[in-house]
Structure formats: C-alpha cells, structure tokens
C-alpha cells in the first residue's frame, strides 16, 4: 500500500507534467524548482498532519488556492519581489 501511494504521487506528477507541456511546451533543468515545497505547504495548510493519519484532498486544494492568492495579491499590491516571496517556503 505504501508503494501505491508513491506510485500515485508519481502519476500525479505526470498529470501535472501533461498540463505543463500543454501550457508551456518547454522543458529545462531549471524549471520546477520548489514545486514540491509548494505542494507540501498547500497540503499542510489544508490541515494534513505532518505526523500522518488525517488529511483531505479538497482541503489541500484550498491550501493551494490560499497560497497562490496571497502571492497574486502581493503582486497586485506592488509589494517588492523579495518581500512577496515569503509565503513560499
């Protein structure tokens, strides 16, 4: 079962890659840095315990929306770039 969860994670990374290819159609060793931490942050904000045992996919999505909205809002509020990166881990 534990292997299955890792396989699922790989599968989801592949689906994300399909979306990425469809949008950017570009690959480089430099892109994708820090995406894993964005995902971990979104999942933790969504209430999933770091010790395991509980979690919800929908709440993880809400966490992702929250982070993205905060970053988007900082851009719109003309907050300087170094300051606006703090919501990201």
């Amino acid at each position, binding site marked *: 079962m534990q292997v299955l969860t890792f396989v699922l994670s790989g599968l989801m990374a592949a689906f994300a890659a399909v979306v990425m290819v*469809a949008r950017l159609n570009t690959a480089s*060793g430099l892109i994708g840095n820090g995406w894993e931490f964005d995902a971990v942050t979104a999942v933790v904000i969504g209430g999933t315990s770091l010790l395991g045992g509980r979690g919800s996919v929908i709440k993880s999505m809400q966490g992702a929306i929250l982070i993205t909205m905060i970053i988007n809002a900082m851009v719109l509020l003309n907050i300087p770039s170094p300051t606006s990166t703090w919501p990201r881990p």
Partner: protein
Amino acid sequence: MAKALIIVAAVYIDIRTRRSRVKRAGVRAALGEQKILLIILGIVAVLAFVRPMFVSSENLFNILFQVSITSIIGIGMTFLMIGADFDLSVGSNMVFATTVAILLEGLGGGLNLAAAVLAATLAGFVNGVLVAKLKINSFITTLSMMFFLRGLVLIFTNKKTISGSEHALFDFGYGSLFGVVPYPVVAAAVLLVVFRPGAARTVLGATCTPWAATRRPPGCSARRGRPEDLLLLADRLPVRPLRHRAAVPPELRLRHLRDGHRPGRHLRGPAGRGEPVGREGSVFKAFLGILLLGVLSNAMIALHVTPICSRSSRGCC
C-alpha cells in the same frame, strides 16, 4: 394542572435550549472545518475593495491555472502525508516527465504523453520500493530521486531549454470549456473529484482517514482527536507490519502516541527495539556523512566526471 403546565413549559424550554446549543455547536464546528475557505473569502473581499482588478475573471482564472498544477501534485502528496511520508521529488519528476514528453514528440499519437506518464510513475514506483521494501527514510529517498531526476533532465536536454511544437496540446493548454473555464483547471477539478471519494471509500482512505472520511472505520470513536482514535488508526494503517501488532502493549502504543510519535510504522515493538523518528542522531555521524559527500565530490572532479553526471550520481548515493 398549573404545575403540570409549568413542568411541560420547563421541559419544552430545556429541549429548545439544548437544540439551539447543539445547533450553535454544529455551526461552530462547520465554520471550524471551513476556516481556510473563510480566509480565502476574506482575502477576496479585502482585495476586491483595495484592488478591484483582483476579482476580474482574467486574474481569477490565472490564479486557478496556477493552482491547478499545485493541486494535482497536492493530491498525491496528500495521500503520502496521510501515511506520514512525503515526496520531495515531485517537482523534478514533473520536469522529467515534461522532458520525456517533448523529446519523444516525434512518436505521435499521444505515445509521448504515455511514455511521460509511464516514466514519472516508474520514478514514483522506485521511490515506493526503496521506502517500503528497503526501509529507507522517505526524506532521503525522495531527496536523492530529486537530484537524480534533475541530473537526468540536464543530461537529456544538454543543459538547454528544449521546446515542442504539438498544436493539439496547445489547444488543450490554452483552450477553455464553453469559452469560460480553462481546460487545465477542468483537468485538475476532474482529478480532485476522482480522488476525493478515494480518500473515503478505498482501502487506503478507509484505513488512513478516519477523521476526514465520511464513513469511519468500524470501531473508531465518534469524538475527534482522541488518542484512542489514533490508536485505532495505528492498528489500521497499512504501512505497519502485521507481525508486530501483537507484540506492542496498548499502554506503550498510547504513550508513544502521546509523546507525538507518528502512528503505525514506528510502533513496532517494546521500547528499545522500535526506532521512532527523531530519537537517534549523532553530530559525529552527521560530520561523517558530510565528509563522505565531500570526498565523493572531490573524487568525481579528480576523475573528470562532468558536473551533471556528478550531481546525478550523488542523488543515487
């Protein structure tokens, strides 16, 4: 008669008070459950006032597009973190799959996408085998996989940015359903809908999410957050070897849980034989690890190994 009326009135008032109290508690619990949504709505309300452009459809769909990729990755991460693991290689895995898809574009017929999906799933499978079968910590395994895949991407792309030219995919990436909702957002929503019941109804979900699941596993208490629930959960987590279950006295398991250890995997036996997270460590051994990496790096330079291969092989180590 008057006394009876007074008693009936008192009982009625008591029932009403209790009902309203239960209702209020229910509303409070519901609000507590949806606090992230409330924060999001609060931010939207404030920004709609301060920067009206924020609530324009272009900006909202731009946010949703950015969220779609993180959400798709987050689905896999949620399942992993429910089992107290995590995957640091998802970002590199995604870039690796992207590279495979673009490099094999000439195959046509969607074969490149199938190969990309297969490659990323295979990387996930290798991670899983290393963690579950060889008992290597998920942090170490996935960190290594992250560097390994990034090294592979650098090798495949020859340190350059490569581009594809598949128009069908562009149509998917930039198109929108009914001219309103971008397809990437639709794809993320479909995956969320597919995998949300998965958290509640599959074996994985039923064993891992007694609090989030709509159907609690039999035997779990109705109250939330009690150590007993966690104990039951520990018994049901699939990652825990069955042979140790009988060997652990319940009071020891409860103590482990109260001490904050992660349920399931680390409750393997009586004190001394188990290996809970965070209990072991040595500054000297950490230094030895750093020394090993330094020696490896130096050896690779001495052997004229290219930096890309060096990075990739350090991921393997």
